[in-house]
């Protein structure tokens, strides 16, 4: 891999004052005549919040839309699992919230590594999202007067989070799914489930189609269109164990990357502090416990390492409430990255609890004594039940054991202000792009971004492509389609042909462990260099020794998984390389070499106040590009939660 810095990327953020950019831009954008929209075929890959909202909205506007997902129904996209809530600058609580405050919090929370123009637009459209969802019948939590309730979330000092019990993602997605189903019923969206995008097709340098593999019978199919929207989610499963759903993958994004879409900031990954710890060698995924638990639970470990006693036998003086001790003003409510890193530090020091020593306590004893069991049950009953179901322990009587887990990926395909990638006609939405969260995402902001991108941003900006470029007719008989299909066929045949001795899952687990140990919560040069070597050898071993059973012409989940793991292997290397070159600590990226005396992250604004975007070159090399970040409206400062 070569890593010489190269050209500057242009973000195409319009000029003018920050709070007028989006309005002006919408005015300046070309329009597609409503009568002509039907003639434009838009391929939307993914039906999560980003994909479902985009597909439905574009169809409502009159475009002809074809939509794809890998699950058996559009409603099962991973967005369904989001628990906590969605932010919006409505200021319904009259507590001083505003578009500017949400903008500012997002920029600061992202540790000054996000683009001002995009983030401001996100804060602006956040308000319309809530209006739209309520009109769709999303049953948000309400107060007795019948108005919407809000809570504060993830360290925000205002209450701007809208929520639907602990199932906000589910309810928002069902709203968007309903809108999508309405358009499918009306014949304006053609929906294809259990079809996986395995390649992007470009004609004359413009994205004009995709190749899919039908997961029920292995058939490859070609789809032509005037634009392609990737809404395929995050790449957290490169770590194997994460809070992502099992089918979450990097394949669509990675295939687009190999066709010319730059990949930005892949090293920015978010580790969530409150997950249920790993229980054993067969663990297949990790379960998130909403971070709202930290409002009442106290985090602690025994004062001394190797203390094998039960929690109840450890007296107050022998406990270390380390977050409260180190961060007296934020205490247990420090941001995700800080809470996660501190948990790792105490476990690394041998003070972790439970069988594996890879856990810390989250204790509700004091909250129950103070507020009563009923109150705590009313607040967190479903979470306590979930915990008990998984662990077999009763969190009302013994403290929960928690440990950080991979949860969200801020990195993704590079996009400009229009959400267009470096491949003209290829737009990237939701978690799959890198756009709005910088180096760290705030709680309740991913749902907001996915819906902003899909309901409001791309439906406007796509006109820049459709009306701004000449798009000659292209159909699937074009040789570019034949080439992409043949390449895909070959890849899947190659996987079957290895006929080695190890299972796909065993490779995926090993890859995950390398990434987690060396490119997880904290990173250092030696470890990352070691990881690069290990991933390369593992990838070589994979192609020599993987055993994929079954054939290519039937429903074959093993082959499906193999294809995704093969892409994760390649992607993992890029993620590690990105972490290596970023000589600073910021947000979710903590380089041990760059920390203050108090072990806090140390940014390097002189050297790294930019986005790193990687271009795939022939022969497996990656060329590095940068987009400088200019801050006009906020002052860069050091985050402090002391």
């Amino acid at each position: 891999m070569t890593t010489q810095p190269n050209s500057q990327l242009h973000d195409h953020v319009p000029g003018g004052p920050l709070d007028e950019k989006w309005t002006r831009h919408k005015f300046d954008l070309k329009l597609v005549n409503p009568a002509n929209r039907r003639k434009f075929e838009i391929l939307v890959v993914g039906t999560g919040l980003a994909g479902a909202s985009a597909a439905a909205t574009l169809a409502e506007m009159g475009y002809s839309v074809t939509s794809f997902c890998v699950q058996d129904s559009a409603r099962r996209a991973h967005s369904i699992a989001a628990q906590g809530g969605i932010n919006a600058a409505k200021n319904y609580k009259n507590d001083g919230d505003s578009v500017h405050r949400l903008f500012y919090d997002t920029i600061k929370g992202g540790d000054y590594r996000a683009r001002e123009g995009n983030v401001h637009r996100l804060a602006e459209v956040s308000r319309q999202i809530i209006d739209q969802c309520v009109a769709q019948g999303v049953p948000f939590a309400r107060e007795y007067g019948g108005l919407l309730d809000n809570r504060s979330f993830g360290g925000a000092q205002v209450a701007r989070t809208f929520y639907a019990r602990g199932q906000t993602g589910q309810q928002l997605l069902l709203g968007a799914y309903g809108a999508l189903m309405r358009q499918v019923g009306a014949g304006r969206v053609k929906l294809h489930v259990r079809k996986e995008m395995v390649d992007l097709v470009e004609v004359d340098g413009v994205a004009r189609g995709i190749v899919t593999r039908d997961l029920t019978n292995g058939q490859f199919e070609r789809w032509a269109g005037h634009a392609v929207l990737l809404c395929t989610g995050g790449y957290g499963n490169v770590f194997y164990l994460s809070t992502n759903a099992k089918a979450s993958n990097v394949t669509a994004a990675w295939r687009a990357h190999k066709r010319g879409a730059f990949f930005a900031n892949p090293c920015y990954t978010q580790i969530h502090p409150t997950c249920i710890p790993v229980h054993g060698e067969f663990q297949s995924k990790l379960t998130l416990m909403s971070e709202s638990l930290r409002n009442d639970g106290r985090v602690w470990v025994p004062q001394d390492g190797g203390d094998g006693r039960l929690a109840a036998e450890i007296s107050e003086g022998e406990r270390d409430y380390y977050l409260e001790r180190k961060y007296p003003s934020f205490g247990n409510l420090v941001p995700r990255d800080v809470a996660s890193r501190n948990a790792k530090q105490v476990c690394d020091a041998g003070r972790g609890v439970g069988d594996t020593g890879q856990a810390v306590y989250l204790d509700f004893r004091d909250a129950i004594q103070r507020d009563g069991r009923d109150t705590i049950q009313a607040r967190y009953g479903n979470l306590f039940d979930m915990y008990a179901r998984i662990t077999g322990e009763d969190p009302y009587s013994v403290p929960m054991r928690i440990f950080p887990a991979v949860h969200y990926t801020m990195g993704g395909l590079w996009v400009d202000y229009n959400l267009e990638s470096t491949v003209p006609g290829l737009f990237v939405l939701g978690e799959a792009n890198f756009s709005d969260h910088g180096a760290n995402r705030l709680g309740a902001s991913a749902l907001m971004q996915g819906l902003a991108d899909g309901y409001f941003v791309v439906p406007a900006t796509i006109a820049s492509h459709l009306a701004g470029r000449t798009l000659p007719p292209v159909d699937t008989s074009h040789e570019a389609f034949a080439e992409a299909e043949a390449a895909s066929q070959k890849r899947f045949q190659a996987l079957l042909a290895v006929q080695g001795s190890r299972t796909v899952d065993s490779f995926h687990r090993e890859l995950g462990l390398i990434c987690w140990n060396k490119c997880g919560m904290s990173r250092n040069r030696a470890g990352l260099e070691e990881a690069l070597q290990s991933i390369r050898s593992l990838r070589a071993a994979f192609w020599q020794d993987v055993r994929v059973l079954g054939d290519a012409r039937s429903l074959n989940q093993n082959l499906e998984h193999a294809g995704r793991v093969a892409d994760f292997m390649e992607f993992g290397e890029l993620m590690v390389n990105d972490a290596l070159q970023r000589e600073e600590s910021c947000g979710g990226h903590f380089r041990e070499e760059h920390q203050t005396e108090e072990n806090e992250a140390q940014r390097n604004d002189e050297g790294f106040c930019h986005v790193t975007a990687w271009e795939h070159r022939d022969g497996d090399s990656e060329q590095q590009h940068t987009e400088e970040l200019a801050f006009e409206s906020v002052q860069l400062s050091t985050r402090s939660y002391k």
Partner: protein
Amino acid sequence: MSTSTTGDLSLTVHVWCQAGPDQPGEFVTTALTISPDTSFLEMLDCLNEQRMAGGLEPIAFDHDCREGICGMCSLVIDGKPHGPEQETTTCQLHMRTFNDGDDIWVEPFRAKGFPILRDLVVDRGAFDRIQQAGGYVSVNTGSAPDAHAVPVPKPAAEEAFDAAACIGCGACVAACPNASAMLFVAAKVSQFALLPQGAPERDARARSMVEAMDAEGFGNCTNHFECAAACPKAIDVTHIARLNREFLRSSLRPRG
């Protein structure tokens, strides 16, 4: 596969295998030792790893979130959709529910409306088509009034939420002696009937969703209520009563 430690369960697992939609199927038996802390799907992962080690193809089953919310997992376990635990999806079921020495029988959801694709995987596309018939509020993006324009009484919002919690898994159909999809349809119709946003399309919605359900080959509801007993999200049968009222109401009004 797993080395037995104290507390591990020794099980005999019988799983339905079927190569394709029109192929014959049969139970395949595997002996397995597993930790009681693993989940049911992890037990199946393990069983599959064991099969693959012996050169056998893994058994196909649907799953995704593995935390009880996406509705992708299914399975009839020892005769019960989603297994023996109340209000628990298959993916949330843990092996500590079983005893050492148990025989466990695993089958797909069986219903005319859910054809088998392979092994334990069925096609639930009919549910999507029922939704297309009216499981939404017709409001185009950008045309919504301010979210506070229409207050919704808290009890109505809460009850609507209870209905909206349906994960579309299909266990209600699998549990019903008539393979009826009434609970699923009722949950959606009820959610919108309880909210002012759903009011304008109330009549058309109940009518067309029920018609779509019938057209997909799901049976009639004859009040066995096995559906609610199997439902992992505790969707209550009162929603079926509401659907019946909505349907009656709609049939008393002119179509249009």
